[in-house]
Each structure stands twice: as structure tokens, then as C-alpha cells.
């Protein structure tokens, strides 16, 4: 029985947060920061012919008005990913060409909001309005080119060609797809459309910047990737990276949104040019129209099977809408195939092809699931459709075909499923909801019909061979530890979880481990909290660092115990020489180490994993539909998750519950609608409907833990997978209730109503 790992410990910052302590970016920003706001393009595609900020500059309190002429001219990417980035270098801080409604035209910095708002209205802009490219299905080789510039570049060839509006493309083949399809008794094919869903974290994007006494640019930002922001801003400002320091305070949520440096460059350039502290806080409106949402996608999935239900071949083609800029576009698309097809084992062939295109719409970025979500909606819907076509229970089709522990996953980098309890996840989820009694549907006798629908899901644990996390731990007075991490807690509680892992290794209480915040000057390097890497990758760095630290503790104890460190055992509090039974306390060793010492009780280690063991889960929805109106009510959603060893059961449960409700939002309530000029209509929480606590139904979550040998204490990851099951599960529940198959989200009463009408 572990003492710290697999315990539901309160987050270290819980009491500060529930009592409203001022710990977020806008709470700690210094008084007197210049307030920075952006003038935004009303056109989806335009050139700035003339821009004149001279009248705006005259407004009392205005410090500067910046246009494209005032900024460095080299292009960069704002995608938070390991260098060299796979995203194209297609951004400028301010550009002459505007590529989506809301694109930044100019920046104004002034002493308060009122004068800045006034100045914004006084900037004179003459636009040459160009025809916008709004339909991603027509983007490739369109006459309208989003990025015609000669200095567009990709550091790594991902099959892009900006002249064709193409960012990335690829074809992956395994086996002989055509031959296997020809032999299949049943083939199901469908096209699935998802939109640019917003992470909609409660704290919008914000940062403040200032020059420190050495003239270095300090950026305090609500970011998931401080180290990437350092590099991105240095690149954008064309200054040395040594001149930039990034500090991350408490963050009010991220979900991937803040894995793109959406706006740090704006206050940064103001401070860089004026020498003065600057602050920018995005409104919710800006966070809805000029942020970093999920990629809109059209995913075509084809499944071929025998009449008994053995899946023999899967093909996935993803058409990916990057929007105006290519952050995370070449990367997210790859998950739509690798992390959907790999749910199944035993197929003889697969093909995964994709094209990623530019359009004059909001630039997409990283959002929990990172492309797997869109792919799983397609593949799981197709498998559900296969079940219906075969007249088989969708659960039975999964039982026949799902990937099993130990199996090779040819669509998942040829890794083996070293830890997988997906079969137990599905079996338990079925039990929890009463699948056998409820599938496919039951008429309730009052014009309503209840039904169930299921989906499997997977994700990954860090990006193998790339994601790197380092940790350092120091022993202090009396033997308390300080642990420095570069991983970014955005509310998930990773500070606490990593302390739990350390506490288990060092055999102490997690309260004895103080976790320091992230500062690029002093924290060990971490790629950041994304790709579900923190528990699995950084957690392993914690384990390694503890092992290294314990060695040094033993060496230090050996001095006072007068024996070989190989003969000393450490139980977290006492160091005992097994030969002489002499003992010294950690407290004494710690205090003694600060006097006349040439060695440090300090260790730092880094970890990168060659593998990325997927977490797995099964999710089942129960819904009720009003046959007259089409109204759909989600009664309950159950999920069983295999994330390996659960480090903190309470926090893990909340991750699942939160992810499920985000998935429910995407499935039923959230929508992105553009008008004919490319303006997003869902530009507020009034129009972009997040699930409220009245919309979720009963959510129930359990764990069926495997043990992953390459993870800390057997852990994998949980951060992203949790959003992937609701959309396909609810869609199939709708089919099971009504015979209406919906392939575009969101699933609404009107769509069900129309479907029912069409079936009459």
C-alpha cells in the first residue's frame, strides 16, 4: 500500500484558491502598467493600404500606437512546441495582410482603458478588401491564397506548399487496403464534421511585461509553455533569448489554449519599444474570435469487416482547417489517424491520409485531445454504424476487435500496448449503465424514448522521443525538500501530483515537499504541460531525481556514520548503517550539510521517454429523446478509464468528469457559425453555450487501472483522453433511439427533428 501515490490529497494551492487569494496574472500585475489593446480587422481578408495613428496618439494618456511598420519583419510561429517546430513560420507581430476577422491591425498602449478605447476608435485605416477563402473544403489550390508571401517557411518538410494553401499532407499505408476491402463482406463509410470549438477556460489570455534592472524583458503570463514563450518572443522581437525571462503564476485553466503564445507578443513589443511595463488582458470576445480553438475537420472513415464482425481494414482521411495561421496544424492532424485506428487490433490493412489547409478564418491551435478527438468521433461513429449494419451489439463489435494488452499497434508508431485494460473498461462501463437491459432503446410510453450509445477512446502519454521534463530537488533545514519543476499546473494539480511521486520515493509526506513555481531563469527545463506529458514524463524525472538525491543523502550520511554509503538504508526519516546499526536522522544530515561542506544535497535529472503508452477508456451515454420535438436530454454518462496507476484518485476523477462535460459541450451545445463575411457569430458566452450544471446529466466515473512499467509507479496519462468519448457515444445513442445518424456536431433537437421527418 503506497503512502503518497494513489492517495486523494488536497492540492497544495486549494485553500488559497477557495479563499480567493490574489494569485493570478491580473491580480499581481504592478499598478501603472500600460494597458495594451488591439485594433482588429473587420475583414476576413484585406491589405492595409494606409494606416494612420497620429490622431489616436494625441489622446491624453496614450503612450504609443504601433502598426506593421513598427515591428520586426521576420516570421515566426506562436505554437508552443519543441524546437524546431513543425508549425510553419507564418506569423508577424503585426502584418500588412489581414487574414481573418479579428486579426490584429494595430496596438495601442495607454495609461488606462478609457483612453485606450478612445484611441482605438481614432486610428484611421484604409483597407483593400480582398476576397476571403472561408470554406476549407475549397481551400486547396484556390485562387485566393492566404499566405502568398515569399518569406513563409517551414523548418521541417511536412508536405506543405503555401502557394496551394497547403500546410501539411501525408499518406501512410499499411498492408494492401484495396485488396482487403475487396474481401470484406461489409464496408461502412462516412464523413464526419466537427468545428472550431473553444477551450473557454474561465481565465482568458493575459500577460504583463516589464524590463528588469538589467534591461531584460520579463513576461508574466498565463501560459502552459513558459520555455517555449521565451523562445517565441525572443524570435519575434529578434533579440537574444538570454534577454527574455518568463514567469508563470497560477493559471485559470488552459486545456491547450495556452499552449499557443496567443498574445504575449503584444505587451512584449510595447515594453520592448517603450521601456515601460505593459499589460494585456484579452476579453472573452477576443478569446472567442482571436484565440486558438480546435481545428475544424472533416474526417472520412471507412471500415471493412467480415459478416461476423471482424474488422479487417480501416482508412481515415482527414481534411484539416488550420484557419489563418498554422499553429499545431501539422501535428494535431496526425493524431486523427494514429489515435483512432489504434483502438483496434487484428486489422490487416490501414491507410491514413491527410491534408491541412489555410483559410481566412480563426487560426486553430491545441485543444485537449489534439486531433484524436476529431478522429475518434469519425472512427467510433463508423464502427457503431458497422455494428448497426451487421445487426450486432456495438459492445460486442468492440469486444471482438479492440486492441488488447501486449498487442503490436502498427498505426501507433509500432509500439506495443504494454498496459491496456480496455476490455475491463468496457465491461465495467456496460455494467454501470445497464447496457444489456437498455441497448438499443426503450420506449417510455409518454412519447419519449431512451437509448444508450458507446465509444472507446485512447490518447498518448507525452510525445515519445521529444517531450522532455526535468526536475530538481534540494534538501533544506531540518530535512524539508524544495522541488523545482518546469511543468505548468493550470489547475490540474500537477504540482501536488509530482510532490506525491517525490514523497513516495523519498518516503516522506507530500507536505514536506515545497513545489516552486515556474520561472525560465531558475526552473529546470520542461516542454510544458501539454500532450498529457506531465504525470508520465515529468513524473519519471521526479523519480530519477529522487534516486539521484537519495544517493547524495546516503553519501552525506556516510560521513557521520563512518561507513560505506552502500551499507546505509534510508526510511525517509532515519539513515541506518546495517553493519553497525548506527543511525543519523535526515534532519541532522540536512542541518549538518550547511556547515563546512563541499557537496550539495541537490539533484537534477531529466526524462524523455522513447515510448508513449496510451491511456484507454470506454464511455457510455444514456439519453432520452422526445419523438415529437426531437429534444434530447442527456440522462447520464459513465466512463471507465485506464490511466495506469492513479496517482491522486480525487484529482483524476475530476479530470475525467471535467473532460466528459467538455466533450458533452462539444457534442450537444457548442457551435461555431460564420456569417458570409467570415465573422464568428458565437463570440460570447451568450452565444457559445458551455454546459451548465443543469445540462450534464449524472456523470459517473471509475478506474480500471493497468500497470505501465515505463511510467512513475505504473502511471500513464489522463489529461486529454477524457474529452474523446461523449460525441460518438451520444451520436450513436441518438441513432439507437431514432434511426437518425448525425455526422456533424453539435447534435441538436432540430437536427434530430429533421432526421425524424426525413425518415417518415
Amino acid at each position, binding site marked *: 500500500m503506497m503512502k503518497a501515490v494513489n492517495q486523494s490529497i488536497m492540492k497544495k494551492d486549494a485553500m488559497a484558491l*477557495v479563499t480567493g487569494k490574489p494569485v493570478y496574472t491580473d491580480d499581481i500585475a504592478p499598478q501603472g502598467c500600460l494597458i495594451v489593446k488591439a485594433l482588429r480587422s473587420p475583414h476576413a481578408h484585406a491589405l492595409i493600404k494606409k494606416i494612420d495613428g497620429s490622431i489616436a496618439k494625441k489622446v491624453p494618456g496614450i503612450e504609443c500606437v504601433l502598426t506593421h511598420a513598427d515591428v520586426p519583419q521576420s516570421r515566426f510561429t506562436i505554437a508552443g512546441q519543441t524546437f524546431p517546430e513543425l508549425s510553419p513560420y507564418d506569423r508577424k507581430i503585426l502584418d500588412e495582410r489581414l487574414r481573418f476577422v479579428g486579426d490584429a491591425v494595430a496596438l495601442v498602449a495607454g495609461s488606462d482603458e478609457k483612453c485606450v478605447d478612445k484611441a482605438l476608435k481614432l486610428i484611421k485605416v484604409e483597407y483593400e478588401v480582398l476576397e476571403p477563402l472561408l470554406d476549407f473544403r475549397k481551400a486547396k489550390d484556390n485562387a485566393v491564397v492566404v499566405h502568398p508571401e515569399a518569406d513563409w517557411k517551414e523548418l521541417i518538410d511536412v508536405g506543405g506548399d503555401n502557394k496551394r494553401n497547403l500546410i501539411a499532407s501525408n499518406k501512410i499505408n499499411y498492408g494492401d487496403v484495396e485488396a482487403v476491402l475487396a474481401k470484406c463482406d461489409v464496408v461502412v463509410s462516412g464523413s464526419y464534421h466537427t468545428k472550431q470549438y473553444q477551450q473557454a477556460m474561465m481565465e482568458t489570455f493575459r500577460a504583463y511585461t516589464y524590463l528588469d534592472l538589467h534591461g531584460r524583458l520579463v513576461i508574466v503570463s498565463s501560459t502552459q509553455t513558459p520555455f517555449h514563450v521565451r523562445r517565441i518572443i525572443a524570435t519575434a522581437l529578434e533579440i537574444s533569448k538570454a534577454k527574455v525571462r518568463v514567469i508563470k503564476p497560477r493559471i485559470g485553466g488552459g486545456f491547450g489554449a495556452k499552449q499557443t503564445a496567443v498574445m504575449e507578443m503584444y505587451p512584449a513589443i510595447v515594453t520592448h519599444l517603450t521601456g515601460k511595463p505593459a499589460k494585456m488582458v484579452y476579453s472573452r470576445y477576443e478569446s472567442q474570435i482571436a484565440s486558438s480553438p480546435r481545428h475544424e475537420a472533416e474526417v472520412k472513415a471507412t471500415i471493412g469487416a467480415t459478416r461476423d464482425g471482424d474488422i479487417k481494414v480501416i482508412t481515415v482521411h482527414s481534411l484539416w482547417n488550420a484557419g489563418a495561421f498554422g499553429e499545431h496544424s501539422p501535428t494535431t492532424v496526425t493524431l486523427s489517424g494514429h489515435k483512432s485506428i489504434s483502438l483496434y487490433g487484428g486489422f490487416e490493412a490501414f491507410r491514413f491520409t491527410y491534408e491541412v489547409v489555410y483559410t481566412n478564418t480563426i487560426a486553430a491551435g491545441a485543444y485537449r485531445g489534439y486531433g484524436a478527438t476529431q478522429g475518434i468521433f469519425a472512427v467510433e461513429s463508423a464502427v457503431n454504424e458497422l455494428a448497426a449494419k451487421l445487426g450486432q451489439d456495438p459492445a460486442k463489435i468492440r469486444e471482438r476487435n479492440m486492441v488488447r494488452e501486449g498487442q503490436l499497434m502498427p498505426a501507433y508508431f509500432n509500439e506495443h500496448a504494454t498496459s491496456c485494460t480496455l476490455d475491463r473498461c468496457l465491461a465495467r462501463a456496460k455494467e454501470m449503465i445497464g447496457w444489456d437491459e437498455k441497448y438499443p432503446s426503450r420506449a417510455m410510453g409518454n412519447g419519449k424514448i431512451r437509448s444508450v450509445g458507446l465509444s472507446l477512446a485512447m490518447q498518448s502519454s507525452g510525445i515519445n522521443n521529444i517531450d522532455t521534463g526535468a526536475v530538481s530537488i534540494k534538501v533544506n533545514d531540518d530535512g524539508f525538500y524544495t522541488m523545482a519543476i518546469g511543468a505548468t499546473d493550470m489547475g490540474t494539480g500537477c504540482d501536488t501530483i509530482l510532490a506525491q511521486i517525490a514523497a513516495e520515493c523519498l518516503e516522506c509526506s507530500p507536505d514536506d515537499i515545497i513545489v516552486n513555481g515556474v520561472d525560465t531563469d531558475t526552473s529546470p527545463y520542461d516542454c510544458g504541460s501539454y500532450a498529457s506529458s506531465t504525470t508520465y514524463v515529468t513524473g519519471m524525472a521526479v523519480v530519477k531525481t529522487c534516486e539521484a538525491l537519495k544517493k547524495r543523502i546516503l553519501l552525506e550520511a556516510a560521513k557521520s556514520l563512518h561507513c560505506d554509503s552502500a551499507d546505509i538504508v534510508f526510511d525517509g526519516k532515519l539513515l541506518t548503517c546495517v553493519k553497525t546499526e548506527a543511525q543519523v536522522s535526515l534532519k541532522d544530515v540536512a542541518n549538518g550539510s550547511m556547515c563546512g561542506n563541499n557537496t550539495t544535497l541537490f539533484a537534477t535529472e531529466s526524462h524523455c521517454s522513447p515510448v508513449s503508452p496510451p491511456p484507454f477508456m470506454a464511455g457510455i451515454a444514456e439519453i432520452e429523446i422526445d419523438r415529437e420535438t426531437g429534444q434530447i436530454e442527456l440522462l447520464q454518462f459513465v466512463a471507465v478509464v485506464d490511466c495506469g496507476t492513479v496517482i491522486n484518485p*480525487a484529482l483524476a476523477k475530476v479530470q475525467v468528469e471535467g473532460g466528459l462535460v467538455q466533450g458533452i459541450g462539444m457534442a450537444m451545445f457548442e457551435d461555431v457559425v460564420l456569417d458570409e463575411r467570415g465573422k464568428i457569430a458565437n463570440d460570447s458566452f451568450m452565444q457559445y453555450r458551455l454546459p451548465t450544471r443543469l445540462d450534464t446529466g449524472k456523470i459517473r466515473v471509475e478506474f480500471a487501472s493497468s500497470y505501465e512499467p515505463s511510467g512513475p509507479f505504473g502511471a500513464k496519462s489522463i489529461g486529454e483522453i477524457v474529452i474523446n468519448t461523449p460525441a460518438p457515444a451520444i451520436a450513436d445513442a441518438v441513432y439507437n433511439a431514432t434511426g437518425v445518424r448525425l455526422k456533424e456536431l453539435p447534435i441538436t433537437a432540430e437536427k434530430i427533428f429533421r432526421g425524424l421527418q426525413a425518415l417518415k
Partner: protein
Amino acid sequence: MMIGFWLNGKKITDEIAADMSLLKYLRSKGCYSVKCGCETTNCGLCTVWLDEKPVLSCAVPALRIEGRKVVTLEGLQEEAKVFGRFMGEEGSDQCGFCNPGFVMNVLAMVRELKNPTEAEINAYLSGNLCRCTGYASHMRAIQNFLAAKQRGAV
């Protein structure tokens, strides 16, 4: 305009601009617990009490508090710690950005409703959005808190 009012139990007289919102005013006075999450009165993050009733401070013109009592989480620290511990035990604090407005509304709810059902709790709190938790752990925290109150444990 110069007005007098009570803020967290203290009598204050201050000059306030005609179109300042209560939210902006409170943050300018150091009540940083009051958060802004939207511009359309949908999120509930800015919830404070005005004469004991939970209101959206983003939508209250600051001058409207003349002669009235305003309470923010800064003025309810002891109660926040008691209820907040139940949140912490469920892990439901998460990013914490929705916490102040949520806690304000929960503390208002327990004064207004006696023995609320789960449905009544959700209805009362429907104006408090949260993106991290999916709300289930909030409910567990509230029910544990209410049960502890029943027992006289808190």
C-alpha cells in the same frame, strides 16, 4: 460622484465614476477575488453580495451601492475556509478561477435554502459556470458540507 456604502463591514466614502461597474470598482479597491470571466453576464465569476443577495457585480452600476452593504469573498474568509476545505477534499478547486464567485453563491444559497435537493442546488447555482470540473465534484463538496452542518460538525 461621492457616495457612502459598506464594503466587507467597513463604512467607506469614495468618489466613483458615473459608469464604473461594481466589478471594476471592487478590483480597483484591492478585492481581487472578484473575477471577470465574460462580458455578457453568463459566467457568474463576478458574484458578490449586495444587501445579502448574490448579484453579478459586472452588471451593477457601482453608484447603485450607495447606502448599501457589499460583501466580497475577502469579507467571508472564515466561512470560505470552512466550505473551501470540502472543495479541496474533492479536488474541485482545480484552476480556482470560478471559485470565488461560486463560493459566494454557495454561501448565499445555504442561507436561503433549507435542505435543498440536488436539483435545487444545481438550479440555484446554474449561473456559475466552471470549465474544469464538470460540476460533479462541486456537488460532492456541497453535499458533504451540508451533511457536516447537519451533524453540527461545522
